[in-house]
């Protein structure tokens, strides 16, 4: 998958769990949980959503890599493209 495709999946998944949030305004380098005020249940729904959309398994030990948009894209690019 291309970076643009993964970016779109991340964006759509975030919009699903936080429909009122302005996803475009999120700073990709900062913790998205703070920026759009999502709690642990929302965040788990986000991670599950990414897993379902992309078909990648995300071990609990890797969840910390998904707390920024930038981190999400880097991690998911690697996982989705088999590296």
């Amino acid at each position, binding site marked *: 998958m291309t970076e643009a495709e993964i970016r779109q999946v991340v964006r759509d998944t975030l919009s699903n769990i936080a429909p009122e949030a302005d996803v475009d305004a999120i700073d990709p380098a900062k913790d998205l949980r703070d920026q759009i005020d999502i709690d642990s*249940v929302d965040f788990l729904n986000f*991670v599950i959503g990414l897993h379902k959309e992309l078909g990648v398994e995300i071990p609990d030990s890797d969840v910390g890599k998904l707390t920024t948009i930038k981190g999400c894209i880097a991690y998911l690019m690697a996982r989705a493209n088999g590296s």
Partner: protein
Amino acid sequence: MPSLGADMQFGTLVDWRVKPGDTVKRGDVVALVETEKGVIEVEIFDSGVIESLVVQPGQKVPVGATLAIVKSDGKGVDAQPAPAPIVEKPSAEEKPPAKVAATLPTTESPRLRISPLARKRAQELGIDVETVTGTGEGGLITAADVERTAATISAAPAIVQTAPPVAKGLDLTAMRRVIAAAMARSKREIPHYYLATTIDMGKSLDWLAAENAKRPVTKRLLYSALLIRAVALALRDTPELNGFWIDDGFKAAAGIHIGVAISLRQGGLINPALHDVDKKNLDELMESMLDLVNRARTGHLRSSELADGTITVTNLGEQGVESVFGVIYPPQVALVGFGKITERPVAANGMLGIRPIIDATLAADHRVSDGHRGGRFLIAIDRLLQEPEKLWEN
């Protein structure tokens, strides 16, 4: 038109999910209704066949108005008072219930029989007396009937039941009005007492980490599930914290339906109920939590979820505070609060250690329970969380 909050007087039918001739069973979502608090999926609590749809999409009608006629099969009704009904038609022989015009009432029926106290109580609670079924002599509506109606529709905690519309703008003014009414009533009527204890979460967190390492992402666990489960199990031994204060008396709830306080990012609060938490296994509880929060965020809560909470749990720790002393959501009689898990120095067995600690608090109604029992309840939660693997034994 079901009442989905003590303050709700009208609702607008957004859409039907059924059509005449459809067979429905108890619990099916049959309509979407918009109130000033959001869009709610309305479930039916009888089973049968939809005979006709009385109200059309876009119409605004008062609480209690007939939305549809259902020919009951007589199987779906149980003894519990259900949230304000979609109309039931008991049998083919009986006359169908009178249809309510899709206009707003300006006066009560001249034949309505209601006690002065009940009328006053209905005004205080914002209940339309036309929607209350009288159980007194000759059908007289008593204060208890009004309270019962309010109880079937209220549900949120320090906190309030509302469901956010997704695309539509949330009426924050209306939501704040709802919160104001419920909380003012709580502080005016309920003699709260407050207790707090600290709980060492080390064993629970270790168990959780070991479990999560083995689990796929779709089955992953959050510590809040353990907290909610521990509350539910502790309630089995402290039933006086699980129920409602109605008509100057405590009514214990039949089930343990825990209202979960959810802070809406747009502002305001809701607390939909997780049903029968003491009977769910770990995976069922996690699945229910994830689903409930997601639907609360996206405006797909159901009427029963807004009506059924028997106690409330609020976990403000996620916002970073260490303790929360809640305001009970009437007519409930207790609220449990959890703060943030923080590492703190703890002395035990003559040694000082650093442990992950959470503050657990109880706000309870002193008309129903006393500090001694409330204290035992908090201690029971602590004890349960020290053996997390046993939390899932029934």
